[in-house]
């Protein structure tokens, strides 16, 4: 996985060396060409997983931006209401991911999504405490995160 990415970068450098220009644009072009080359031989050298993983990573990033826009919009509509009526609360979210950087990533994604803000991780790394700006139904919020971000993170990093 990582080695394929390195090979891709080496191919970009080789392209820049051969064409005699190390400008950013030429390096980027070399990277794209290297990716295309790796894509062509994906069956032979087993890079199919590399591409599906890159696709999933892009998918995760796109979801992230989309949720950020949605959450900012939601905060905006809450804030400009004449009367603010909300049911905020702390919920305990049972974690499935267990590696530190996955927890970090999930916590950051939760913070930037509509109405939720991660506050703390329990000492045994099994529970994430999340503050919700409006939780009529805590279980529904937990299920949303489980089926949304956590699943996507598992797909990209496992």
């Amino acid at each position: 996985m990582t080695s394929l990415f390195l090979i891709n970068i080496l191919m970009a450098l080789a392209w820049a060396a051969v064409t005699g220009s190390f400008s950013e644009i030429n390096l980027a072009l070399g990277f794209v060409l290297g990716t295309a080359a790796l894509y062509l031989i994906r069956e032979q050298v087993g890079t199919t997983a590399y591409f599906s993983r890159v696709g999933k990573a892009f998918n995760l990033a796109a979801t992230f931006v989309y949720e950020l826009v949605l959450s900012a919009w939601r905060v905006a509509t809450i804030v400009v209401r004449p009367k603010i009526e909300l049911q905020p609360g702390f919920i305990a979210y049972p974690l499935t991911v267990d590696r530190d950087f996955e927890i970090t990533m999930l916590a950051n994604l939760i913070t930037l999504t509509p109405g939720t803000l991660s506050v703390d991780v329990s000492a045994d790394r099994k529970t994430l405490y999340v503050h919700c700006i409006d939780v009529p139904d805590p279980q529904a919020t937990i299920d949303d995160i489980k089926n949304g971000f956590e699943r996507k993170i598992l797909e990209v990093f496992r």
Partner: protein
Amino acid sequence: MSAVVTILAGTMLVIGSLFALVASIGIVRLEDVYMRTHAASKAGTLGSGLMLIALAVYAADLAVATRALAGVIFFLLTAPISAHLLAKAAYEAGYRPCADTKEDAMAEVFPQKD
């Protein structure tokens, strides 16, 4: 071409500053520190991010654009962490959530001192 770029950058600037404005209204109007962090971390990030992207579009210079985009990425990386730390520190310091708070799963972990 340049007119399109100007209009696009201008629109993004206006929308970005609207979100920044909403974030600050939220900080004033919402009830406790946790809800205020919601406003600051989300609407604030989107607002500043949009304004930086507007700069990247308008500059039409790779060096400026990459720096502006790096700024956006650092915003996305740091905003959730600072919001998280603020909320955690406030809770551990004994700042109680506002009276409307329906459920408090953290009360067991950090019993509040009276």
